[in-house]
């Protein structure tokens, strides 16, 4: 093996793949067979974190950054003058196995620029997964990025060897996509997604009847969209995510704050800051939909199409629904406890457990891990709660903002000086 050349390729193709948000290795479990390599559990493991704070659990690379498309937001676009490279199937397999053996990674995330056409590219990706599974007896995690427009036959094969498949829908709105990636169309992305979704449903049915059915994309599908490259609002983004969760059974939707890398008059200028706070708020909303039982319409509505940058979406909802508070910890149901600002899933579960033993006080709440500085305004303890007098106060919002410090404080300092 020529390590110097391999190193050069790895540098180019890891660099080009880094804007893909997903690096998760969760959701699929694949037990090791006797004497083989690899075992993945549903929770997944982050093996390290980059200096930007993101988790590294997979070897995330492109097979090649040669691409026939010219999408405005993409560093690998055909008109961009950059170094190009491509891995052979064997090289990707070798890197994956050797990194896995040293416990650097949980598996492989393989994406690719599109060379020649969709099927040629997809076929090559599938070949990597197939070789890992059949020749190397590898039971680690494999995430393949499906190529828009890939044929059903190839998608079928991909789902047999990969744990997760995904297609990035790239831009939240169709008009945005037309503007920035005129050669791509939404339908080419949705068709393979639909095919996999049906396949997964069919697998689940067969599994009920037969004991041994070959796994079919066991970790499901995900997608990703770029935020802030076009001028869509948060309501549109959340609706799109909600649509994918409901109608495509997606495991995850990822949001990627646009990092300006290219000069193009259709795009925000190179000096625009990455919309980190907005991205953060979108993830918080996503969590509210997936784990807290919130509906998309509750988080935002047409009168309020953007997420509040000063307070998180759950607190923002609570401030708009003060009439639903205070909530009594001793009697309220779990779903309502989850809606108290400052109380997360774990704490809510602990509350429901602990209250069987005794009457809870604000001191208990602190110890259970709630963010009491926010929660205290919304809870009625059996012994009373002096903070409740603020609940009807028009200054409650100010009080809450003043009582907490945000890691994004400097990002909205501009707005604060207006007051």
């Amino acid at each position: 093996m020529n390590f110097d050349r391999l190193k050069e390729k790895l540098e180019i193709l890891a660099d080009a793949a880094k804007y893909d948000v997903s690096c998760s290795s969760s959701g699929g479990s694949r037990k090791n067979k006797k004497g083989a390599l690899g075992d993945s559990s549903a929770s997944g493991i982050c093996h390290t974190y980059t200096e930007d704070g993101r988790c590294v659990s997979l070897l995330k690379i492109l097979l090649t950054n040669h691409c026939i498309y010219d999408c405005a937001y993409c560093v690998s676009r055909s008109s961009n003058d950059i170094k190009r490279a491509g891995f052979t199937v064997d090289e990707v397999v070798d890197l994956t196995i050797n990194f896995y053996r040293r416990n650097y990674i949980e598996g492989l995330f393989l994406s690719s620029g599109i060379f020649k056409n969709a099927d040629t590219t997809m076929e090559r990706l599938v070949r990597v997964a197939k070789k890992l599974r059949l020749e190397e007896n590898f039971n680690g995690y494999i995430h393949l990025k499906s190529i828009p427009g890939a044929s059903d036959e190839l998608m079928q094969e991909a789902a047999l060897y990969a744990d997760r498949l995904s297609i990035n829908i790239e831009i939240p709105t169709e008009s945005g996509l037309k503007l920035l990636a005129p050669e791509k169309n939404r339908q080419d992305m949705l068709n393979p997604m639909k095919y996999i979704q049906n396949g997964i449903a069919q697998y689940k049915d067969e599994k009920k009847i037969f004991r041994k059915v070959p796994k079919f994309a066991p970790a499901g599908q995900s997608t990703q969209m770029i935020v802030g490259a076009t001028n869509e609002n948060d309501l549109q983004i959340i609706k799109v995510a909600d649509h994918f969760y409901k109608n495509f059974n997606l495991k995850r939707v990822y949001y990627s704050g646009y990092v300006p890398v290219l000069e193009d008059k259709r795009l925000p200028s190179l000096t625009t800051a990455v919309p980190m706070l907005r991205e953060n708020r979108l993830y918080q909303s996503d969590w509210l939909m997936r784990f807290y039982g919130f509906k998309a319409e509750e988080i935002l509505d047409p009168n309020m199409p953007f997420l509040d940058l000063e307070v998180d979406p759950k607190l923002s909802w609570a401030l708009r629904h003060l009439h639903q508070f205070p909530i009594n910890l001793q009697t309220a149901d779990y779903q309502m406890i989850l809606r108290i600002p400052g109380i997360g899933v774990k704490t809510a579960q602990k509350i429901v457990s602990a209250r069987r033993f005794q009457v809870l006080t604000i001191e208990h709440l602190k110890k259970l891990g709630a963010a009491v500085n926010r929660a205290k305004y919304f809870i009625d303890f059996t012994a009373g709660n002096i903070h409740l007098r603020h609940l009807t106060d028009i200054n409650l919002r100010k009080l809450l903002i003043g009582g907490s410090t945000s890691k994004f404080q400097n990002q909205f300092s501009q707005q604060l000086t207006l007051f």
Partner: protein
Amino acid sequence: MTTLLYDGSFDGLFTAIFEVFEYRYKDVEIVSRERFHQENIFAEIHEVITQNEKTERVLNKLEKNIGKSGIHELLKVYLSEDSELEQLILSAVKQSIQHPTENILQNYADNDMLKISKICKSVSRERHRMTAFVRFEKMQDDVFFAKIDPDFNVLPLIRKHFKNRYQDQKWMIYDLRRNYGILYDLENCDFFYPDEKLDLNKYQQKFHDEETQYQTLWQRYFTKTNIVERKNLKLHIQHVPRRYWKYLTEKN
């Protein structure tokens, strides 16, 4: 006040707990022989001899009350090496005997149970980190070797994880702080306790020929997958605390 001295083992601790009930001691402390310094000169000393049947009886009873997972939590408290571990486990057993129909560990409003839940959380976090941050280095004899130095004694909690994961390669994980390790030789996967400290320098010189190449590839990958425009060192350090850096290939 009675002081029960036990041998420091998990079984010994539960024998001691059995004897607390057996002899109806009211005011007791349980101390491992290694950590015992006689301070309370009025205390009566009771030497505990580890007896498996006594341990079994306590554990069986406990399993009925708090389940296998409850016992696993108490094991984590034991592995935490916390200075209060004996007192906390005794408190849990006492309360569980008093309230046999409830899983007493879930009474988070009780101070001891809350402490247990916090210790379990810390131990689990470190256990998880050790499944993540172990870095194997391939040696000339084809053994993949890793050294760790965890705050809690989590090696027993990660054996199964690595045993399931790496069945077709020989490997060894060594706890530098506690001087013992796990060795898998393609057939057995057992703990080993060397008489002397492992001579690391000598061992490290015997890297497999390709080892440094893959280390370099991994380091380059780690650098290149980072997005400079989004640099957030605070978050980075929160996820990868500095104390682990010296054993991480990508950080060296």
